[in-house]
């Protein structure tokens, strides 16, 4: 029997990128908030510059709750799903933002209106067959104030390209208008990154430094970035990475309104006979607790948001909470980040001291920033060249067919070339399709006996065509910069377990095709809200976190200012 705890106004399930941000506007509005987090608290003393621990052994997320509920994967309905190799996210106060790359992009205006913009320019026949893509219920302009707020609350460094419609050639010429500059200038570049930017200009492209939730100078009393080279899958030893763990969560706790409960493994959202949620049940150690709440905000990762809804069946919701329209788990997509390009240069790139968020971007081939009239796809990708290298991975480099993989000849090769390769990060438009979805696996469970998520999904023709097109562009860029060898990865097929997982609880005005409304509140359950990229219907060509955070702030602000009408 679960121990019934004192009630609260709002319970947030998951204190990561989204939940950790939403806690602040709620607490500031005077609402009592309980934040349930499956992981514990980590501090900067836990974040040693240690490649073995962070990158090879997957510390600390290899021993996490999420590692015990890795989704199963299959390409199509007729295949048997097989459990993935691991879970890329981690449980902790702050979640995966503790060790993420921290690239903090806004989506471009096109991403909010893929259907109408494509139809206007090329005709409706250009929407790929089988895609369930919809326009967002609002445009970029609606989200702009929330992007702005989060950029300043957590701290984002970057170079604006469009302030109130006034273009700045140092920034991204394709970005939507922003109300003001970034709160901090962009992270610095290395000599190699300057060279790549110059080569992009030679090709007639418009390179710029990307945005990052990393301090480029001291901000809010925390240090600037130390560029030590262990940011990738490592936490920050000087708190320059602006996770909610060091920004919004401590500020929300300081109001006295946020109570953080760690090591809380939420299993069910409970519902009364009227179809309202009453709170959540969680396990901590071997004890079970019921946390009553007047409003429940699900803010775990995409896979877990969907799993909790599907597991929380009730009389009013016989096939899962907020699932009477059978939309939970639908419109799933994981960002196409594969199909990479790697280059070998004839001289050292001096990439040892850097971070994945320190780089040069090109947006000329993203979204609808170029004419697709003669092409067989819509969308595109952002090209990202960054500075990031550690010794074990460097020694394990691709030898480009120029040397064997061991022995004296290999040793001579890596001595010369360990610091001479670069791999581009190319994020591509990925659309939702009718045949790509998540549900509960009928066989595989976690240690508590709860089913894990089953992902049935593959990249379709549009994604593969985008990937091929972007590889051509990236190869050209590398060759222009003097690369002597370039290799390309496969175009992709089955979707794996991803850090960029979208959909499953999509946001939209139409309750027949979407789980949450334009404010992130359930269409069916009057006191349930959902945060995270699971509400996003399109991926854009850039990292999702800042958009998930802006949406989370917007949902929380809407809830706080309409508290009475929503809850009573």
């Amino acid at each position, binding site marked *: 029997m679960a121990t019934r705890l004192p009630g609260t106004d709002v319970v947030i399930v998951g204190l990561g990128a989204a939940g950790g941000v939403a806690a602040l506007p709620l607490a500031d509005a005077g609402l009592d908030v309980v934040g349930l987090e499956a992981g514990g608290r980590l501090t900067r003393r836990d974040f*040693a510059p240690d490649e073995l621990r962070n990158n090879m052994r997957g510390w600390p997320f290899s021993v996490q709750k999420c590692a015990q509920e890795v989704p199963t994967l299959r390409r199509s309905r007729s295949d048997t799903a097989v459990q993935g190799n691991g879970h890329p996210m981690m449980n902790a106060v702050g979640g995966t933002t503790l060790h993420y790359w921290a690239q903090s992009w806004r989506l471009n205006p096109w991403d909010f209106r893929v259907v109408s913009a494509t139809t206007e320019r090329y005709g409706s026949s250009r929407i790929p067959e089988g895609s369930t893509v919809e326009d967002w219920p609002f445009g970029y302009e609606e989200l702009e104030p929330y992007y702005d707020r989060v950029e300043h609350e957590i701290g984002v460094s970057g170079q604006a390209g469009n302030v109130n419609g006034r273009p700045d050639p140092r920034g991204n010429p394709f970005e939507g208008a922003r109300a003001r500059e970034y709160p901090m200038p962009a992270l610095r570049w290395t000599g190699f990154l300057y060279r790549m930017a110059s080569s992009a200009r030679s090709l007639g492209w418009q390179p710029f430094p990307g945005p990052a939730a990393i301090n480029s100078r001291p901000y809010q009393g925390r240090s600037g970035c130390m560029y030590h080279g262990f940011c990738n899958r490592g936490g920050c*030893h000087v708190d320059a990475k602006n996770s909610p763990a060091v920004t919004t969560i401590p500020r929300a706790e300081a109001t006295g309104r946020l109570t953080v409960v760690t090591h809380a493994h939420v299993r069910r959202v409970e519902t009364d006979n009227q179809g309202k949620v009453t709170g959540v049940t969680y396990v901590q150690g071997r004890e079970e607790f019921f946390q009553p709440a007047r409003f429940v905000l699900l803010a775990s990762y995409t896979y877990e948001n969907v799993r909790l809804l599907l597991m929380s069946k009730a009389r009013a919701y016989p096939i899962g909470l907020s699932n009477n329209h059978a939309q939970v788990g639908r419109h799933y997509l994981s960002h196409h980040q594969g199909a990479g390009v790697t280059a070998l240069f004839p001289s050292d790139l001096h990439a*040892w*001291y850097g971070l994945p968020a320190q780089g040069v971007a090109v947006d000329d081939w993203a979204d609808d920033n170029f004419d697709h009239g003669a092409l067989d796809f819509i969308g595109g990708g952002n090209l990202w060249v960054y500075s990031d290298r550690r010794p074990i991975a*460097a020694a394990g480099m691709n030898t480009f067919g120029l040397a064997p993989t061991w022995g004296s000849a290999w*040793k001579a090769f890596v*001595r010369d070339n360990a610091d001479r390769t670069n791999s581009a990060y190319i994020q591509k438009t990925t659309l939702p399709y009718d045949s790509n979805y998540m549900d509960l696996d009928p066989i595989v469970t976690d240690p508590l006996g709860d089913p894990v998520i089953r992902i049935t999904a593959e990249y379709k023709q549009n994604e593969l065509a985008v990937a091929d097109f972007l590889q051509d562009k990236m190869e050209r860029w590398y060759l222009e910069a003097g690369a002597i060898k370039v290799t390309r990865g496969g175009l992709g097929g089955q979707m794996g377990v991803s850090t960029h997982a979208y959909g499953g609880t999509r946001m939209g005005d139409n309750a027949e095709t979407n789980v949450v409304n334009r404010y992130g509140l359930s269409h069916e359950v009057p006191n349930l809200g959902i945060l995270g990229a699971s509400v996003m219907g399109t991926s854009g060509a850039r990292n999702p976190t800042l958009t998930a955070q802006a949406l989370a702030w917007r949902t929380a602000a809407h809830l706080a200012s309409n508290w009475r009408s929503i809850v009573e």
Partner: protein
Amino acid sequence: MADTKPQLISRRSLLRSAGAVGAAAAVGAKGSPAATASSHESQLTPTGEQTSDNKQPRYIFEQLTADEAELLEAIADQLIPEDDLGPGAVAAGAVTYIDRALGGALSESRDAYHSGLAAFDRYCRSSRDAPFLELSHIDQVSVLIDVETGAATGASTGFTGSSSSFFSMLRSHVLQGTFGDPFYGGNQNFVGWDLIRYPGVRTSVWPRLQTQLEAGELSPNHRSAYDSEYFEKAVVRTATKGTYHGD
């Protein structure tokens, strides 16, 4: 493993004792082997005894048998040999690293090592009529190519799955033991980092240092991450819970 032991004392056995420098010191009060291994000061053994440089502490294998360790060193010596470019995996202590990790972070691979090394030995004896340590350099290389490409797979050897997956596991762990942080027992005297010209672990890299690096004027920083007291504290806290390996 084979019942018959090789009758010769190999060069590798000698190298092994050299490669073990500092490994035992890792369990000493100073935390990292790196600090002591790179200095000329006397070192602490696990029991706190003073030893001098000319009588180096021995590393006691905890997971691998003597035969397994010797075979693994011979293989590691082929993967990253000592040659004109300098020391290789053996001097780096890659086998020490693997043995230690098999008791901790890599414990799931322990069975794969025991059965894989036995299969490797059987393959040498059945296909080359001699144990690996008695083969010529060229024959050792050809055996390794068979194992790497999967050609050594088959019922007569008993590799679980393809021999190439055993090879790729070995290779990745030898890379970890040669190029990983010396705290974990490998990369002794920073031979791996020096080989690939890694300028070293630093906790802050100001613009001036990056400029020096790009100008070729930055000297390598020979430090383990845990030479910083800041992170060492966190490790010591783990150590009180019963492990001194930092795993």
